[in-house]
């Protein structure tokens, strides 16, 4: 491999990794937010992302709506759907003295239900693409090629992350969510309604998933099995720190870049293994994740 090739691969791996990594980061934020406020790893995260893609696809191609309508309707529909799942299913399981495993199984149930739903429509038989709002014209940065769509994905994801940060740090609801994440019982004592906040967190996760789906599906295509992308988001959350929202962002970007660099410098066969290796290394070297703070010790 010549020096110019190494230099090209480095630039391309870094830039392409940032694009896909920014979407992994969004999904990782959704996972971490739900985990922090409900103590439940949401195993339906990928399917919520997937169903958002199919909702948008149905509205665009079957109903013939314009993007101006499709985007808000998809985002709201998925957010409401996720909130209802928390209110109707998760809340009831919790009230009936449901423990962690039962809540996790409930999210698995949602995952299978959503996948089955899409397969029933017949839309899931072939890979499909959402029409792209931004052109695929090349954008050359250094020696690397991106497309305008890539740049739009990255910038929109970053803008969404900034908005999420502002919500958590400057709004009452955001602060209430953080309080529930830190100490639910104390938050309840000061008058925060846990069920309402948890419902809002699920709604936010749905909203973020819908946004991620609208951004990335014109690039990676959509099938009922595309939900596996959540595994990469989980890897991002673990690498960044499962209890840290900035960690989720960092983890997402790292996973995106690692995937590309491994594919370019080691082997394309190893791309899918790279996130799991990153998880293993993180768990061995820093189990709480890069920005996961100090290891927690629970007194019993």
């Amino acid at each position, binding site marked *: 491999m010549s020096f110019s*090739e190494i230099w090209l*691969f480095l630039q391309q791996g870094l830039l392409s990794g940032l694009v*896909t990594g920014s979407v992994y980061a969004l999904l990782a934020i959704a996972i971490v937010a739900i985990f922090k406020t409900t103590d439940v790893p949401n195993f339906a995260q990928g399917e919520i992302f997937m169903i958002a893609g199919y909702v948008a696809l149905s509205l665009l191609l079957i109903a013939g709506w314009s993007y101006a309508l499709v985007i808000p309707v998809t985002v709201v529909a998925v957010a409401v759907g996720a909130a209802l799942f928390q209110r109707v299913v998760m809340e009831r399981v919790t009230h009936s003295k449901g423990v962690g495993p039962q809540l996790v199984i409930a999210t698995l149930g949602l995952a299978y239900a959503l996948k089955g739903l899409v397969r029933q429509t017949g839309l899931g038989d072939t890979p499909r*693409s959402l029409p*792209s709002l931004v052109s*695929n014209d*090349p954008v050359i940065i250094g020696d690397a090629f991106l497309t305008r769509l890539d740049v739009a994905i990255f910038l929109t994801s970053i803008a969404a992350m900034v908005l999420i940060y502002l919500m958590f740090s400057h709004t009452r609801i955001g602060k209430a969510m953080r309080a529930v994440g830190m100490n639910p019982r104390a938050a309840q004592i000061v008058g925060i309604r846990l069920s309402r906040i948890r419902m809002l967190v699920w709604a936010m996760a749905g909203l973020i998933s819908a946004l991620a789906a609208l951004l990335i599906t014109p690039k990676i295509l959509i099938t009922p099995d595309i939900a596996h992308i959540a595994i990469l988001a989980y890897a991002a959350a673990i690498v960044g720190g499962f209890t840290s929202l900035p960690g989720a962002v960092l983890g997402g970007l790292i996973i995106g870049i690692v995937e590309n660099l491994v594919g370019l410098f080691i082997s*394309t066969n190893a791309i899918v293994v790279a996130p799991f290796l990153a998880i293993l290394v993180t768990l061995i070297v820093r189990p709480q994740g890069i920005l996961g703070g100090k290891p927690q010790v629970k007194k019993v």
Partner: protein
Amino acid sequence: MKTAKSLLVAAVAALSTLAAHAQSDPGLTDKTIKLGLFGPLSGNSMAYGFDVMNAAKMYYDKVNKEGGIHGRKIELVVEDDRCNANDLLAAVKKLTEQDKVFALNGGSCSAAVVGAREYVERSQIPLVMLNASGDGALYPPSKYIYGAFSISQRAVGGSMVQFAAEHLKAKKIGYINHDDAYGGWNLEAAEFQAKKLGVDLQVQSVAPNLTDVTAPMLKIRAANPDVLLITTYARPVSLLVKKAQELGWTKPIVIAVNGTADLKQLVENVGNKDAFKNVYLQEVMTDVAGGPKLKWVYDMYKAYYPELAAKPGYPQTYMPYGIPSAMTVVNALKAAGPQLTREKFLTALSQTKFESNVMAGPIELTPTDHAGQKSAIYLKFDGEKMAVVPGAYRSLWTYQPK
């Protein structure tokens, strides 16, 4: 006296064994041969086999109308396997043990049909696959199993390399396959063919669920091959063709039959017809679907299933694949003669050679190679129209016992 008595007993025993053997094969009467036909009649994978089974049924019906085989009519028992390994095994068991069929003709999905290999061998019942490529069940060869009447995965790779070297005059070939069993099989024959032809093969293997194809495509571009062969499934094909165009790739791209089931969707997914300026498609039939060489198959379908043929989406893409499989069964039954046994049928299968006028090459089975079809034709595809490239390109790989 004692010796004569013993001889008599032995002769009676031998005769009764022979008589019992002659009548022992199930599914046979003087008037009928019972066959078990199975494939996906429902479920997500119905498109792979529903009309393939219809094609086989109409061919058997035609044979029956023409007088049958040595005076016997073919009687079909039909089962739905949903392209699912468990359902397929259940269907095979039912057909073998409950319906007591003479032979099995079925399987449209390789992964599912491979799972029945052990049972078929244990039950010693002949299985002639429908349109599954089924390399996993065909190599190493089993006495009882024949298939790949569309094309084997190995032949997919070998034929593509032949086309790239012979028609496109490529000396260096880029090759992207999957890193699963299917990818391994087609690569094995591609490497064999490349070695025979003296061309350089630059391989990138990717996972079927890969979301970002930048790395493999960039590495292929860096290797600077004369042509790119893609043997992946439909989704990675779309991503790779799109990425190739983004990276300014203008050399020929050849897409294997694995990824071309829905061309309209492929073009939509790529999103730019310019990406198809130099694209070729592999086709395992002798002509494009509905083309003049295949008109007789489509006319026959319309005559047998007028209501179905009038529906949008019918006949399904793979419909003609059912004919060569049924032809193979019929030819072997004829060759086995009027004193039909499973052994004679299996021997006849292993000596099969005929032109189906459906597939790109002849159907040829031997005692050591049970994959029926090894050739493909190629179509120049501009994103809308297709033009047949003259000639068929054959894979040279053959199974070598280790």
